[in-house]
């Protein structure tokens, strides 16, 4: 938790920046190289050529405009989902509930759409869906916050459990009350055009990414430049000291977790109104867990989260090229994702930090 509370290195003399940064960079490059090599060995075991696989991934993922757009689309909910982990983390809270909060965001947005109806003014409809999604996400995280404040239940446990309740709520709704028709695939009715997020210029990228980038800046400013951001980091560092200093720790815990939930709710709304247009049983699948890991990869810092979300989205998109070029299942890309995570989690922190 050292990285969250304070960055002791930042207060030291900044002079030999390059010489300090170089070993860190080398460690990152080294661990990532190992991850790629191990994955190559696995591909060889499966009789696929790693060279073909990697060049295939490179060409069809990064050299094609459509793939690049797809990466941006997929990184949007990850950015927001990771911010939903980062804000509570600043207050010393572990929010493993992004998965459920994203689902509830989608459910909230869909509920608003069904309630307000397609006749409403287009702008009003989108705003209603966004607000409803934020409230739904915040309430879902608020349950965990309330359980912590009233009964002392740890939020890492309760948010994790609430993920499964959220999934069951989603399935309940799309299998019965909100089901489009009793025959065929269980799904809600498709959004009307006015309820879909518009695209940026002439691309297939929905405007959600703009909102995500703006919110990353807002979260950065709120955490580092406001009294509230300072207070939650004090409460997260030492709750007892914060209490003695007269801070309302309970309110800070509640607000940090609920704001996290609201951010995840927005992620759900964007995934729903910008990508999927219907709630299906697979809605938001693993977005929350991926976001949680993206946040760890970025060490809970808002701007690095943008990079981590891009990396995860790129890996996810390249899974499809892997299937086409190397003939192995798309989900195999999870192996590479996991190797990168293991490498970074286990082998990029300095020895001293690892021992702490």
């Amino acid at each position, binding site marked *: *938790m050292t990285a969250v509370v304070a960055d002791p290195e930042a207060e030291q003399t900044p002079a030999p920046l390059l010489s300090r940064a170089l070993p860190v960079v080398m460690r990152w490059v080294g661990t990532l190289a190992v991850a790629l090599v191990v994955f190559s060995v*696995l591909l060889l075991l*499966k009789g696929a050529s790693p060279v073909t696989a990697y060049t295939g991934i490179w060409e069809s993922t990064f050299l094609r405009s459509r793939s690049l757009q797809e990466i941006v689309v997929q990184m949007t909910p990850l950015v927001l989902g990771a911010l939903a982990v980062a804000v509570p983390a600043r207050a*010393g809270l*572990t929010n*493993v509930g992004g998965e459920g909060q994203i689902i509830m965001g989608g459910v909230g947005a869909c509920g608003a759409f069904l309630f307000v109806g397609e006749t409403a003014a287009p702008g009003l409809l989108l705003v209603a869906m966004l607000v409803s999604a934020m409230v739904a996400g915040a309430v879902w995280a608020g349950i965990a916050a309330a*359980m912590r404040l*009233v*009964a*002392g*239940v*740890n939020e*890492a*446990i*309760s948010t*994790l*459990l*609430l*993920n*499964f*309740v959220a999934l*069951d*709520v989603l*399935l*309940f709704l799309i*299998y*019965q009350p909100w089901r489009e028709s009793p025959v065929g695939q269980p799904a809600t009715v498709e959004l009307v055009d006015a309820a879909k997020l518009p695209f940026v210029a002439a691309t297939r990228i929905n405007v959600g990414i703009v909102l995500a980038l703006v919110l990353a800046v807002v979260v950065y400013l709120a955490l580092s430049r406001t009294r509230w951001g300072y207070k939650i980091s004090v409460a997260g560092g030492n709750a007892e000291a914060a209490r003695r200093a007269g801070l309302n720790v309970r309110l800070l815990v509640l607000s940090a977790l609920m704001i996290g939930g609201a951010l995840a709710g927005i992620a759900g709304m964007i995934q729903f109104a910008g990508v999927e247009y219907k709630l299906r049983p697979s809605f938001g699948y693993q977005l929350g*867990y991926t976001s*949680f*890991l993206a946040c*760890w990869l970025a060490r809970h810092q808002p701007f690095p989260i943008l990079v981590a979300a891009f990396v995860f989205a790129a890996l996810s998109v390249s899974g499809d090229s892997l299937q086409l070029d190397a003939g*192995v*299942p*798309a*989900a*195999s*890309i*999870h*192996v*590479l*994702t*996991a*190797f990168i*995570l*293991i490498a970074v*989690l*286990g*082998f990029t*922190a300095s020895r001293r*930090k*690892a*021992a*702490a």
Partner: protein
Amino acid sequence: MSLVVDVLSGGVSGGTSIMYAGVGETVSERAGVINLGTEGSMLVGALGAYAAGVETGNPWIGVLAGATAGGALALVHGYLVVRRGASQFASGLSLLFLALGLTSLFGAPYVGQPVVGFDTWEVPLLSDLPVLGPVLFQHDPLLYLGYLVVPLVWVVLFKTRVGLLGRTAGERADSLTVHGYSVHAIRIGAVTAGGVLAGMGGAHLATAYANAWFENMVAGRGFIAVALVIFATWSPWRVLGGAYLFGCAIALGPALQARAFEINQFLLDAVPFVLTLAVLTILGKRTLSASPAELKRVFENAPPSG
């Protein structure tokens, strides 16, 4: 009457994989390490058992392979969190993704392949008992082995020196260091043992319960096991009861639907989780005080000692 028997019997057979994984997670958490990768250990255990079963035709070799695979994955988790100081939540989830990827990469050829799984073996005499017979004694051998696992783990944890060392690693790691034991080695051992049991749970799922392999077949049971350990406040006996209780909740929906009752399955699926949340809220701070002290430090984001 037959509905009750169906649900209870289904609860026992469906709950067994959760029970194996839950008991394993209990061992791990008693030593101070929470493993969200339990779901992953079950997945590689399921594929390992299924693949070995297909290749050798012997389901017991399959169980061995599944247990090995589950243990190996947990060993990585143990190494990362104990030796490298990685976040327990992040490491566990990373290993879940590793398991999803590996089983998708190596499992594709086994989808739809027939396997020699475990057959039902009715226990002589006992299976003729009314109600208890069909509920408890008309199942597969791997499920019966599960009846022995809980008492065995309880004895090891609470009546042997190894168990004492493991529990001390979860309660007062410093005192182990003082007496010259390696907290690291003990914790890694406990996490690995937990993974072995989760792998056996996966094996039961693939070669006894479903007799099939498909991608992501564990479908959240590993997470249910993690919830169950907390629900059971770290007692192996309550894990046993809870696993069958959760199994019954899952079995109730199909049993009712088979009798043409209109029931939405997903409300019943939510029962284990809502129940756990309710228990946590009612027990309140007592749950946390019942938790191993070192585990509490993990939850509270405090650096572990030892």
